């Protein structure tokens, strides 16, 4: 056992922090810290700065820009990115579609996509969920029918984050509906500029503009865009979901939020009186900070165990997802409570097509963040699904003897 970070790991943390603080423009970090929506250009700029240092895709194969760092070092990297209010490399690119292409794509696909994905020259969004297929993802219906050199794609995706900013979408589509529902699913890359695709914004209660419906009407997709084999999309999706888990607990993000709560509650920069003078408030904040310390260590334990195991997803990751999402929500609640009555005159973002910041500014952001944070326990496998996993896969409950 080595319950401390090694000197090398500490050195790595310092090096990362230094690079981030020196190279990422302050305006971008301020926007992230205040949880204002970022314009596309800023996200691209930040990812390219990270990519130059090898920080965008360290978990990829070395041939494609990976670094062969230990999982602990990668977790340190993510934590520092979050804690220093640097936009994370776009998860859809680097954590989801990238590793799938690297593992199952053809050489041609790797050459074509991987460098562009790492550098955010191409922006991917994730087309998995459908109106009838949320938690029950395998129920998806969007169909792809082969016609010579193309698939004809018809159907609808929903909750597609950033589809309106993206260049491409990676989709699970049904190429065969004869067998079990997990069979007959294929993994397809689709250029969003292809005729027949319509993207409609879904307005959300946080005032952000982030999720969309994506409609496919007889869209012609070259068969070259199929990843791996037809009908094996479910396996690839499982592989994808078992990928980069060093960020699952959102430890750095929660820490940044809690630090911010302390600042506002102590009234040094906050617009209203001191919430910190209330013993009840201090207790709740302290409790959250302790929980976060525990999560930080749990995260490292899962990550370290992971490094030794194969690519099979470790069901204990669900612990990180559950506590991590809850802590982000708690931190957002504490911020609202720290602001007191003035949380209200923070105002509220109105989705506005002409405003790149969507009307959400530093004052309204805490309210937006509060509403928005509900998503953390819903997407990427809801907390109920995570509990099902823990109950069944870890505790062995419900299995018939």
């Amino acid at each position, binding site marked *: 056992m080595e319950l401390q970070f090694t000197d090398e790991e500490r050195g790595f943390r310092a090096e990362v922090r230094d690079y981030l603080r020196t190279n990422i423009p302050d305006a971008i970090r301020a926007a992230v810290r205040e949880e204002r929506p970022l314009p596309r250009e800023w996200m691209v700029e930040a990812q390219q700065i990270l990519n130059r240092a090898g920080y965008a895709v360290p978990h990829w194969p070395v041939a494609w820009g990976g670094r062969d760092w230990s999982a602990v070092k990668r977790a340190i990297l993510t934590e520092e990115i979050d804690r220093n209010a640097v936009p994370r490399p776009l998860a859809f690119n680097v954590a989801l579609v990238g590793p799938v292409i690297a593992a199952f794509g053809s050489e041609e696909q790797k050459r074509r996509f991987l460098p562009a994905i790492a550098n955010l020259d191409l922006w991917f969004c994730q087309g998995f969920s459908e109106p009838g297929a949320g938690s029950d993802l395998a129920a998806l219906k969007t169909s792809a029918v082969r016609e010579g050199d193309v698939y004809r794609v018809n159907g609808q995706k929903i909750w597609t984050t950033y589809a309106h900013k993206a260049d491409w979408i990676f989709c699970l589509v049904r190429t065969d509906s004869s067998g079990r529902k997990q069979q007959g699913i294929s993994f397809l890359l689709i250029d969003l500029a292809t005729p027949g695709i319509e993207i409609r914004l879904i307005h959300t209660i946080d005032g952000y503009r982030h*999720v969309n419906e994506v409609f496919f009407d007889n869209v012609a997709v070259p068969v070259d865009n199929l990843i791996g084999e037809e009908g094996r999309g479910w396996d690839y999706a499982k592989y994808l979901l078992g990928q980069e888990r060093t960020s699952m607990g959102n430890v750095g993000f929660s820490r940044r939020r809690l630090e911010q709560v302390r600042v506002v509650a102590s*009234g040094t920069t906050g617009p*209203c009186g001191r919430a910190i003078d209330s013993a009840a408030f201090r207790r709740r904040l302290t409790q959250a900070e302790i929980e976060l310390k525990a999560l930080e260590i749990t995260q490292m334990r899962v990550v370290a165990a992971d490094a030794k195991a194969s690519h099979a997803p470790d069901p204990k990751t669900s612990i990180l997802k559950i506590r991590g999402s809850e802590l982000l929500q708690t931190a957002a609640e504490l911020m609202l409570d720290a602001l007191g*009555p003035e949380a209200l005159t*923070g105002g509220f973002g109105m989705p506005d097509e002409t405003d790149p910041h969507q009307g959400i500014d530093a004052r309204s952001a805490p309210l937006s963040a*509060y*509403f928005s944070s*509900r998503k953390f326990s819903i997407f990427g496998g*809801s*907390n109920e699904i995570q509990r099902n996993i823990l109950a069944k896969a870890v505790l062995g409950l419900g299995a018939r003897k």
Partner: protein
Amino acid sequence: MNFDLDEEQELLRASASRLFEDHAQAGQDDAAAQWRDYCDMGLIALPFPAAVGGLDGGHEAVMLVMDAYGAALARQPYLQPVLLAGRVLAQSEGELAASALAGLLDGSRRAALCLYEPRGRYRWELPQTSALRTGEGWTLRGEKRAVLDADGADLLLCPASVRGGVALFAVPVDAPGVTLSTRRTPDGRSASDVVFADVALGTEAMIADHRSAGAAIAAAVDGATAACCAEMVGAMDRLLAITVDYINTREQFGQPIGAFQALQHRAADMLVAIEQARSMVYYAVAMLDAEPAQRKVAVAAAKALVNRSARFVGTEAIQLHGGMGLASEYPAGRYFQRLTTLETMFGDTDHLLGIVETAGGLPD
């Protein structure tokens, strides 16, 4: 005890409910007409004594109206102009207050009570805003925060420090030196920050002096807080109904998600939280005529519990809806926004628990 509604109360609840539901169907387009409807139905006159032209409705009647208001997510200002500013006006003196109250009752005017100040959180009792005596009257100086529904009001009621106490001043919104900066709250109301920069006022502007203003404001705030709790319970109740409906129809894994016991238990816990909250609304209403110190503690205790229920019910409802809970088009999210907004009004949970704690617990 008897928790049944009498015939008159049933009627009031049914008609208020129908009105709010109709308005909700019609949308927000005609705010002025909807406000007229409130007036025509007698909702505005409801809480006021007959002596000033009111209907003497009583606290229970207001509770029933607010419950229906919350259930329908009604949008026309009520808490502020009627229960806060209106009630304070009814306790005030002079021509200014009387004409403002008459204007409220005939639906032509609204006032807004400005309670909170920068750094003051929920403590309105000792304002930093000050009124200095001048030759001709008063000079008012200070800032107020998060004033509910101040836009649309023509008169601001501003508590200010006078002689170590608090007095109440009526200030026309268009008086020189008054600036409003207004924002939309998440549930579609408005909240304004107001600056009073050396506003020159006549002597008549002081509508309640340092001997009477504090008590009048406290009574209005406690009444409005109880009403706010009733609104929250109405909203929670409906939100649970919407959620139950949703999980009974939404299918995943080949069955309604409401068939999963994990979700059934969550819905059951929501019910428990709501019924506990409703009981505290009854308690608060029953205590509104008690001696002021007891009234304050009882109301604080009620809202502390209602707040906690609201946060639980609101977040659980969103969770049980999955992604749909976050969509603005779908009602669940809007109820959550309303509950969140109301939670921050008249004291958050920590503040309210503090009041009860300081008093050494609940009154007998």
